[in-house]
């Protein structure tokens, strides 16, 4: 039986942990909290997965909750998004103190910044806010950031932004129950697609390794998978705009959790999806792809009906999720706000989680 084994429980934050973010190349994790700090944790013994230590605390940069934290692709910088409406850029002072310092503060959002994300190349940074806007920043030399675009098509808070794993394409999830896909045409950013289907706030999204599929989780307690159909796709899905790909929902896992789902992570290493939320539970799904429609599972009539509807609604490819394992009370009776698979080749089975109990936990997935 596949399982999730707890390796370590990291204590230090003095308020709920909102977001966990893995370093791109080292066994290091950054976490942020309502206590207005970011903590950096490191696996201190390569032979022992259970040995972790806090090696840094980033404080003083924000006046309110830090909602989101993200490493730049080269691992040199951290970006933080805070309820104080600013985005902080942090860098380790290699020569003198060895500590992380806030080297830039990006201002512009009218109120709470909810999420920050670096593009794959590190050349762009995206931020989003309760002010309903998504901002795209260009990263210049010397920690200089120039705002390229302010995107204002969501009708409510924007909860999360995530970049495509290889292209300069951005996805955003919102309190308006939709996901939007943003592309640029010669530095002119625009919304190329709006993904409708969730019945409530979309809290989190994540691409698969190739960026052909997107997973989304919502307060409607479902996990949805969306597929990107390219122009000329063999399934003959028509394009909305000439020459532009279009996204369609191709799978839904109803009642995936008992309460709001706050986080989803699609492993770029092994393709498993982790979800977590307010029902205190972490779930792991495997995803299999087939060219033909899978036979509906012989379950309740309603489930079968839903599956039939999904099957009719799209012509493939067919992604089937199957529940591998789940941990109830993963953070005691606390909500889990964030889960993230390690990007490291040798530690792709590590999953980090952060919860309302103020702890960070490291898990190992055993297939």
């Amino acid at each position, binding site marked *: 039986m596949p399982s999730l084994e707890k390796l370590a429980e990291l204590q230090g934050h003095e308020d*709920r942990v909102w977001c966990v973010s893995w370093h791109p190349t080292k066994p290091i994790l950054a976490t942020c909290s*309502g206590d207005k700090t970011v903590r950096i944790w490191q696996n201190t013994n390569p032979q022992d997965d259970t040995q972790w230590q806090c090696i840094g605390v980033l404080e003083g940069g924000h006046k*309110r*909750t830090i*909602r989101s934290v993200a490493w730049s692709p080269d691992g040199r910088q951290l970006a933080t998004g805070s*309820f104080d409406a600013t985005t902080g850029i942090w860098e380790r002072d290699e020569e003198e103190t060895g500590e992380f310092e806030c080297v830039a503060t990006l201002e512009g959002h009218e*109120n*709470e910044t*909810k999420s920050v994300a670096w593009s794959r190349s590190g050349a762009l940074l995206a931020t989003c806010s*309760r002010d309903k806007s998504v901002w795209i920043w260009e990263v210049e030399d010397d920690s200089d950031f120039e705002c390229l675009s302010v995107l204002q098509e969501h009708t409510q*808070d924007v*909860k999360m932004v995530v970049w495509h794993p290889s292209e300069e394409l951005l996805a955003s999830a919102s*309190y308006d129950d939709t996901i939007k896909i943003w592309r640029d045409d010669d530095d002119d950013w625009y919304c190329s697609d709006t993904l409708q289907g969730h019945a*409530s*706030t979309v809290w989190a999204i994540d691409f698969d390794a190739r960026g052909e599929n997107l997973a989304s989780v919502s*307060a409607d307690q479902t996990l949805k998978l969306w597929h990107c159909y390219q122009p000329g796709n063999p399934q003959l899905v028509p394009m909305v705009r000439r020459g532009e790909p279009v996204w369609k929902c191709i799978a839904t896992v109803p009642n995936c959790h008992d*309460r*709001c789902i706050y986080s989803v992570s699609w492993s770029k290493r092994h393709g498993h999806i982790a979800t977590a939320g*307010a029902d205190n539970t972490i779930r792991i799904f495997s995803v299999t792809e087939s060219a033909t429609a899978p036979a509906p599972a012989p379950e309740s009539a309603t489930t079968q009906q839903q599956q039939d509807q999904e099957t009719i609604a799209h012509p493939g490819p067919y992604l089937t999720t199957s529940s591998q394992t789940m941990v109830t009370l993963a953070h005691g*009776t*606390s*909500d889990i706000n964030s889960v993230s698979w390690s990007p490291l080749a040798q530690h792709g089975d590590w999953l980090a989680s952060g919860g*309302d109990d103020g702890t960070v936990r490291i898990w190992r997935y055993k297939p």
Partner: protein
Amino acid sequence: MSTLINANPTIYESKASNVRVLRSDDDDDDAFDAIDSQEVFDLIRSISDPEHPLSLEQLNVTQLEHIQVDDDGNRVLVEFTPTIPHCSMATLIGLCIRVRLLRCLPSRFKVDISVRKGTHQSEHAVNKQLNDKERVAAALENSHLLEVVNQCLATAN
């Protein structure tokens, strides 16, 4: 406040049946104390209305019958009734109830708060906002708003 949203609210008597009858083990600190709807009601009945010197119970905003507690499942559902369907204070009242329960109930409880079906014209929007933990967390970092909430909660006992 210069103009009241609801200048002449109906005032209700506190019901005798809303008073808890003391049980033999009430003084025994070791007895397992399950949380019930009466206990939740007692926590919120005396919260002040944001615009009247009256309690939520006196205005019939909160009622014992509209509270559901599943002690084993760690869940609480509080439904409240705004005094008028276009009450602009509904979100604030809901926030006061949420903060009161956040401070007083054991943290194992998941609390849902909503306006009674059909009692507010923006029911869906109010409910969505009240149950969005991120918005609630951000609201409670707003010192002005927190002060207003604390004023309403000052009468809660």
